[in-house]
């Protein structure tokens, strides 16, 4: 059994903080907003203990700018926010996509649009995470439904940010962020941690910050070290200098999208519950998945062949995996707390879109096993 010191009873936001610390976070910049604030509060306390830096910026835009700057000096960085702040970060988030800056952005979702329902749960920012900034681009967005998994996907978020040189969005939600439950801090080495890939090009030899290696990866050089190069949000050549020639634009944009979309399988994380013989499948994620699992467990106990596919990677959407897992199911219910954002993806992914149903709740209350059961009964033609 685990060393007792490694067991914690914490909020999900704190689990995220501990995951970030495990992953090696060195810099955080943020601006408080419910229900994400505990992430920054804990990091204000935890980071300097490890020699890391914490700064409360004047707003969310500045926070996003600061973490990009700090990433370029060679540090692992993160910011955290919720809906309104996530909207404000979009311009700079697009910059991080374009300039290929490793960074993690946690969005602990609350009810929107606008100021909305600040202290209530929602999963309404899923599509925004994909499309919130202007222009074509690709993004990685991860989520989790319990504290152990929050810890893990936070580590993975940092890993993927470094691996793909990209911003990674952590889509948590108010329920999971605020509730407390057990967290067992893994031993060092238990979860692999990806360190920044730095260039091995020596002083005096040309370093091309934006020329992908054979394996597609782009080693970085820290600001302050021997290689002086340029970073810009304009389309740019392999040295990082602005270039708007059609060929350069075309290649860079495809690179930005392909490096994510072509790695959908490596990026994809998910969990399965009773899926082996499932005739009915609940596809869910984040705190909704807790209710889905709860409901499925109960129904299984009554002999119904129902399973749960819990998505942890929302973007790039793992369409092939979903298609495969759902093949042959009588009905698929997507359980989410919005007007139907992932259900659209699932419908496009599966062979028979008509077998896909939405079990949702948008009123700020956590969707309950009973809510899902109601939809299930209706699908079965049993009424409510």
């Amino acid at each position, binding site marked *: 059994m685990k060393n*007792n010191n490694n*067991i914690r*009873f914490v909020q999900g936001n704190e689990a995220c903080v501990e995951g970030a610390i495990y992953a090696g976070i060195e810099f955080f910049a943020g601006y408080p907003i*419910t*229900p994400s604030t505990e992430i920054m509060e804990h990091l204000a306390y935890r980071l300097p203990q490890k020699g890391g830096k914490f700064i409360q910026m004047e707003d969310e835009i500045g926070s996003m700018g600061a973490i990009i700057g700090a990433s370029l000096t060679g540090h692992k960085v993160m910011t955290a926010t919720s809906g309104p702040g996530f909207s404000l970060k979009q311009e700079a988030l697009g910059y991080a996509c374009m300039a290929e800056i490793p960074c993690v952005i946690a969005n602990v979702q609350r009810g929107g649009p606008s100021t909305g329902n*600040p*202290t*209530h749960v929602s999963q309404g920012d899923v599509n925004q995470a994909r499309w919130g900034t202007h222009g074509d681009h690709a993004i990685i967005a991860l989520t989790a439904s319990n504290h152990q998994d929050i810890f893990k996907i936070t580590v993975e978020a940092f890993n993927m940010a470094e691996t793909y040189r990209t911003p990674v969005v952590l889509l948590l939600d*108010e*329920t999971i962020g*605020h*509730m*407390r*439950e*057990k967290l067992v801090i893994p031993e060092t080495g238990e979860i692999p941690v990806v360190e920044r890939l730095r260039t091995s090009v020596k002083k005096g030899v040309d370093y091309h910050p934006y020329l992908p290696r054979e394996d597609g990866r782009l080693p970085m050089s820290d600001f302050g070290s021997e290689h002086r190069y340029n970073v810009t949000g304009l389309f740019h050549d392999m040295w990082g200098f602005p270039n708007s020639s059609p060929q350069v634009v075309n290649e860079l944009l495809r690179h930005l999208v392909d490096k994510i979309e072509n790695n959908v399988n490596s990026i994809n994380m998910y969990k399965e519950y009773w899926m082996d013989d499932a005739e009915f499948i609940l596809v869910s994620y984040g*705190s909704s998945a*807790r*209710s889905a*699992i*709860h409901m499925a*467990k109960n129904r299984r106990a009554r002999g119904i062949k129902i399973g749960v596919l819990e998505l942890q990677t929302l973007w790039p959407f793992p369409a092939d995996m979903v298609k495969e897992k759902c093949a042959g199911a009588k009905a698929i219910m997507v359980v989410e707390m919005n007007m139907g954002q992932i259900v659209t993806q699932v419908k496009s992914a599966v062979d028979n879109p008509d077998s896909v149903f939405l079990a949702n709740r948008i009123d700020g209350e*956590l969707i*309950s*096993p009973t809510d899902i059961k109601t939809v299930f009964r209706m699908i079965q033609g049993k009424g409510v």
Partner: protein
Amino acid sequence: MERLRLVFSGSGGQGVITAAIILAKAAVLFENKNAIQSQSYGAAARGGATRSDIIIDDSQIYFPKVIQPNVLVSLTQESYNKFAPIIRPGGLLLVDSKYVTIGKKVDAKHITLPMFDTIMEKIGKPIVFNICMLGALIGISGLIKPESILKVLKTSIPEDFMAMNKKALDLGLKMGKKEKY
């Protein structure tokens, strides 16, 4: 162990949320159980009735909210009025005699204890009211070992305050143990 669903309710300054966290934490850290604690946030938390949900179980807990508590603790009239109707038939209702007057009974064991008055009389500090309540609840139900609570307190409050807290817990325990449930 059967799944335990508790709701602690009261008003802002009474420490019901702290009590809920202590209880759940004790169950997880020192009794090898699973537990979940959650609470209402926002405007309602500042004025009005505060509520914290706790679920304790040996197995994994998924849905984290309490819809119908086995145990309801209410430390204000307002919270009693609001939450008494949701108590699970056959459950337990614990209220403080100074703050709550029981109205229309529900199908549950009703226990009214002079927790606040006892604390004020024996210790004189309202700040440990919530710990006394925990003691009483444990006394009644035995849902956890009192030592586990003390272990949690040891990690979270200054040494100097331990004696007072222990005393409050004991006062509660004593009152609680007298009640049959």
